[in-house]
């Protein structure tokens, strides 16, 4: 769907150096959006449209509010496109494609464990809300640089969800010092002690992970080791965002173990962790 998103709120999160923004857009895109999906945004107000930058920027949908026709995008200013986007003001109208992509799948029952690295937390909020509203138990593992980053990136909103949360920071200023994989590892060990046989009353856990590639790879390896299903959210530079240009392919292994290409925009951005070929160069 191509639509206009009216900027109804656009604020800096945390301090200037963190370059984080929260952008709320009003428009029809909210009606069909699913957690894990994304939109592509033309970074300038439609009335000022320019060919530079030429491409839309993909941003995950962080919150969905169909009642108010609003979607929330959380983003970090990275390069020129997001820098220009950061200039958008209330009342501006941005051209939006989407919702796009497949979204996370929700388990029917059991627990959903969210594992986030850094700003990988952004697309997981809508998923948490959705899962909670469906009565699933949700748990969060989130690793980041330091306390102030975590606070800027939305810690307070997560606290409001009142879910079990394990935080880790690289500098130890909040939660445990270290990587997010460590608390995840302990937790997995608790529900599935090393060589125990599967039991009938075992907690059924699914994992949804988003973050840097290396982190998602480690999380996937952990989950495979504990035989827990995991979905990851991939990123790639996009041209069309609808599967037409083959710009955004990722490499997966098919059932027969052959390397194949899938489109992050259309077949993803969510993939089963075990399918992904992490260090591919083909």
């Amino acid at each position, binding site marked *: 769907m191509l639509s206009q998103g009216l900027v109804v709120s656009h604020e800096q999160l945390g301090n200037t150096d963190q370059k984080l923004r929260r952008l709320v857009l009003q428009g029809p895109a909210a009606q069909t959006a699913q957690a894990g999906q994304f939109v592509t945004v033309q970074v300038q107000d439609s009335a000022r449209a320019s*060919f*530079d930058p*030429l*491409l*839309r920027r993909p941003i995950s949908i962080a919150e969905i509010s169909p009642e108010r026709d609003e979607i929330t995008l959380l983003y970090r200013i990275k390069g020129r496109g997001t820098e220009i986007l950061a200039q958008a003001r209330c009342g501006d109208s941005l051209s939006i494609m989407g919702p796009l992509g497949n979204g996370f799948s929700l388990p029917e029952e059991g627990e959903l464990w969210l594992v986030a690295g850094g700003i990988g937390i952004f697309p997981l909020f809508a998923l948490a809300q959705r899962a909670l509203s469906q009565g699933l138990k949700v748990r969060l593992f989130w690793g980041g640089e330091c306390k102030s980053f975590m606070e800027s990136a939305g810690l307070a909103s997560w606290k409001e969800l009142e879910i079990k949360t394990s935080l880790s920071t690289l500098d130890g200023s909040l939660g445990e010092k270290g990587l997010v994989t460590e608390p995840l590892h302990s937790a997995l060990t608790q529900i599935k002690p090393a060589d125990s046989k599967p039991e009938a009353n075992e907690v059924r856990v699914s994992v949804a992970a988003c973050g840097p590639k290396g982190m998602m790879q480690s999380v996937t390896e952990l989950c495979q080791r504990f035989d827990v299903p995991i979905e990851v959210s991939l990123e790639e*530079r996009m041209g069309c965002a609808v599967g037409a*240009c*083959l710009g*955004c392919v990722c490499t997966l292994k098919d059932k027969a173990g052959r390397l194949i*290409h899938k489109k992050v925009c259309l077949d993803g951005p969510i993939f089963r962790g075990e399918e992904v070929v992490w260090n591919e160069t083909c």
Partner: protein
Amino acid sequence: MKPVDLTTQLGGITLRNPIITSSGTYGFGEEYLAYCPLEALGGITLKGITPLPRLGNPVPRLAETPAGLLNAVGLENPGLEEFLKSYLPKLSKIPTAVIANISGFSLDDYACMARALKKGSGITALEVNISCPNVKHGGMHFGTDPKSAQEVMAAVKAETDLPIIAKLSPNVTDIVEMARAVQRGGADVLSLINTLLGMSIDLNSQRPVLANTFGGLSGPAIRPVAVRMVWQVAEAVDLPIIGMGGITSWQDAVEFLLAGATAVSIGTGNFYNPQAPLDVVEGIRNYCEQRGYSSVQELVGLAHRG
């Protein structure tokens, strides 16, 4: 007032209107359905296929440049066999002209694909890509050497009864010479232009952005070069031209028609605005109405007068 006649003749086929979408930017016709109904278009051009399946180049395959896009997809495609099996059957249901785009690394490659794509197969015309700059062997050569280009067209012509469209590379000293060569080879229509060879370098990694180093430059940035080539070829060669390169709006499309293109094709413009083809059709209709043209064909080459 009589409605403007938008129909367009192209090498013996009739298009509903002169708006086509470009190879490699519009998949196999299904991808943009949510944005643009195919029956609104004059035609679509499919992603380039090769005899054997290709995984293409590693990522990054795309790099944005000022008003432009570099791509090095590397002709990823399912290959002829899979195309015939899984894609072709669906195509005959597509409510617009369907142009297949073929690429190869030898005359045999082209011939074998031409043999498989004939009238009645669901394909309306065959676009012969002799210009893809992303493939290390062959591609560049066919598109920049007049003699080879002529041979490729002749090889295709000998094998198919479909109208054949020669897609020319802009990376040549003399585009008119290339157009004349493919005309001698039997081309019924010319498509121009394909992408300009370019590259960009990342300042952090200090390496080329594209895994393939080089890529093809498309988008608004190249439009002045494309319009110039259409103009030059229109002056010199008596074949209908599908003009393309940087079209995003009806104004851009009219520019190509005035320069001498019989039809126009939209590629990268779809990424900018997935409804660009619809907007272009409407805009051209209005332009004709407001200026009192009864047929869009009256625009073709108009800027060459006086």
